[in-house]
């Protein structure tokens, strides 16, 4: 942390929709939604008409009859996102990309070469607009959390620099939902108790917040509201987690749905773990219900997991727990799996078949060895013939096979 606002958060505006509008000039200035049965992303013009992400297509059309739906151009999103990251990289090596369309930069050491943070932010915005053709908003502040809030406030197509001497002036009146980690549920809880602004959250007593949100969360959110965020920008580096999520139209949580979606997510996440030579011990699932409330459940296993079926089984168990705790929820709109506590794949001591019941979670067991062997074969087939060449029947033949895999890949994040 420095006394200059040298942490930047650069965030492409309505990225997927912006790319579509870039590629097809006929879409510019119009409300555009990317997706099929569900809105995966939409342009600002659409947002102004009340369309938002995760909204079912029928409701989006209701709100905005002129809405244009387009299928995703996965390759282009990746290519253009990478180009933007390259531009960011010319200003500092300390670039931490946290998703396909956003990154943190630490430009504290770049002043001599490139100028103060404010100048760098302006240059980034200009170059991304001119060289790539996309609008990008930037927030500059003393900490990561504040920079991200600033970039949110700057949108669309804007720049906000927070003067370190006037941070409270900036933060205090902002709505509490801008704090990272405050979603619709927590936001509603806080607002119901009269905590509507970030200032009020920062001033709330720790005991009161602990009572409302739990001790750990209460402390963390209050610290963020008070702008105590010592996290450094971690360039490239090893991701702390690997995850994927899948949004879909409102569906009942049937065993078929869960097997298909979780099977698909497990396939993606485990595949990426294996590609990086990693395995993880903590598995977290997120379940989002119809009203956008979401809950997470997680478990830390005794041994790291990287096999697709095993990950799916663990995730199914966690989702079942979450559903059991919310028996009145009858529809889901999103499922996500994330694996953290990552370690490099180790050389595993294999085990003799001494147990009648073979535990696939023990890395040396017969089942674990068999699953990993199968996974490796699948990985090799896909490397040669493409992802679609082979897959689990429950997923490939399921109803949700509509949205292209590659598009889903983009919703995946490697978290820091």
């Amino acid at each position, binding site marked *: 942390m420095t006394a200059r606002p040298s942490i930047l958060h650069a965030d492409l505006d309505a990225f997927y929709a912006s790319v579509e509008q870039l590629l097809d000039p006929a879409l510019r200035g119009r409300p555009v939604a990317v997706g099929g049965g569900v809105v995966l992303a939409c342009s600002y013009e659409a947002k102004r008409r009340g369309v938002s992400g995760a909204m079912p297509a029928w409701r989006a059309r209701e709100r905005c009859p002129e809405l244009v739906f387009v299928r995703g151009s996965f390759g282009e999103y990746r290519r253009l996102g990478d180009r933007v990251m390259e531009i960011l990289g010319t200003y500092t090596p300390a670039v931490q990309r946290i998703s396909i369309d956003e990154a943190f930069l630490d430009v504290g050491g770049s002043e001599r070469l490139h100028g103060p943070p404010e100048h760098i932010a302006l240059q980034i915005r200009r170059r991304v607009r001119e060289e790539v053709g996309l609008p990008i908003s930037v927030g500059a502040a003393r900490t990561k959390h504040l920079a991200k809030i600033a970039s949110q406030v700057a949108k669309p197509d804007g720049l906000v620099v927070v003067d370190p001497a006037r941070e409270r002036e900036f933060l205090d009146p902002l709505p509490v939902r801008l704090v990272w980690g405050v979603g619709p549920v927590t936001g509603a809880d806080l607002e119901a108790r009269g905590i509507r602004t970030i200032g009020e959250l920062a001033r709330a007593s720790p005991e009161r917040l602990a009572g409302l949100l739990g001790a750990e969360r209460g402390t963390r959110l209050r610290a963020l509201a008070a702008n105590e965020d010592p996290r450094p920008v971690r360039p490239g580096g090893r991701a702390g987690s690997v995850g994927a999520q899948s949004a879909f139209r409102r569906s009942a949580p049937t065993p078929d749905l869960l097997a298909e979606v979780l099977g698909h997510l497990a396939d993606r996440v485990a595949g990426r773990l294996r590609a990086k030579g990693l395995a993880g011990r903590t598995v977290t699932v997120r379940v989002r219900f119809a009203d956008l409330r979401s809950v997470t459940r997680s478990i830390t296993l005794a041994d790291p997991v990287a096999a697709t079926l095993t990950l799916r089984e663990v995730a199914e168990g966690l989702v079942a727990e979450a559903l059991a705790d919310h028996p009145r929820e009858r529809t889901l709109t999103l499922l996500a799996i994330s694996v953290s506590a990552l370690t490099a794949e*180790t*050389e*595993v*001591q*294999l*085990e*003799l078949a*001494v*147990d009648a019941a073979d535990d696939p979670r023990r890395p*040396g067991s017969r089942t674990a060895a068999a699953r990993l062997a199968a996974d490796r074969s699948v990985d090799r087939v896909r490397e040669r013939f493409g992802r679609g060449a082979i897959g689990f029947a429950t997923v490939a033949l399921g109803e949700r096979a509509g949205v292209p895999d590659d598009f889903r890949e983009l919703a995946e994040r490697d978290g820091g």
Partner: protein
Amino acid sequence: MRLTCPRDELAQKLGLAGRAASSKATIPILGHTLLRAEDGRVEVAATDMELSLRLPLDGATVDEPGAVMLPRLAADLVRSMADGPVVLEHRLNEGQLSLSGGGSSFSLNCMQAGDFPELPPDVGEGLTIPADRFQMTADRVVRAASRDETRPVLTGVLVRIGPEGLVMAATDSYRLAVRHTDLDAAPSEVREAVVPARALQEALRLITATRATEVEVVLTETQGVIRIGGVRLTTRLIDGQFPDYRQLVPDRFEHDVAFDRGELIGVLTRIGVLAQRTAPIRLRFEQGQVTVATVSDQVGEGRESLPVPFSGEVLEIGFNADFLREGVESVEGDEVRIGLISPLRPGLLRGADEEYRYLLMPIRLTA
């Protein structure tokens, strides 16, 4: 109670008995050793409720019969006394005993012998086995047993006595050792039980200490008894299904490579020095030779080659360095043969004598 006993005998027997005493503080009296003196027989005994030992005290003179609990440090005291007779004296129901010999005298707090649990009865028809056969079988096998209490049946050794002789098998799921020994007077019925490895290890120690020439083994529904001379070892048996070693040991191999046992132990020891706890020893078999290597990020690399009669496609397989070396050491004779199938299947170590087998699962090497 009043008793006189030669110092060496008392020290040795207290030391041996004390190994069955409990080291946990949950039931204090189980950490002490019972000494019971009756006309004609004196014995010391200890138990932790799983294993119990009763040993006769030879050469002792009983002036007054009785029983007393000896705390653990009594054994240390007696061992440190000057040579000569040791006198033990205790008044019934008193909380102190006196111990004197070699010019020194001690008064020790002691617990009440009446509170000591009743030991399992020494009953049952046993099979007498020559001590050396018992040792030969148990010694090699018991080291492969597991120490992990979460899978109790693997912490025991399968002991089977029947028409085919004596068989013992132990496994910790990474390696499995099994040995078969012929018996001159083999019984017609099969008796089989899973005996805690610890009990067998104590039996082996007692055979050496007492220089016994034979042992009598009793296996009942509930307990095992091993009689070594006048010593009685009783142990609970372990419930559960012991893995069927006959199913686990492959009967066919792709390769069967013979090594000079001494040479191989040398290589494994040298390379093993570098192998960190989880780093495997890699064996790379190719035409006419095997290269033994290990790589450790922190420490470095080691590599050594041996000429061996191997032919065919290159085979690279990893093993835990300690498990492999222990396996090779446990084989008798000058030669050790290693049977291999593939890098993911176990290797089988045996010597010229086919009666002993050591099966070892590999470590899966990353690309």
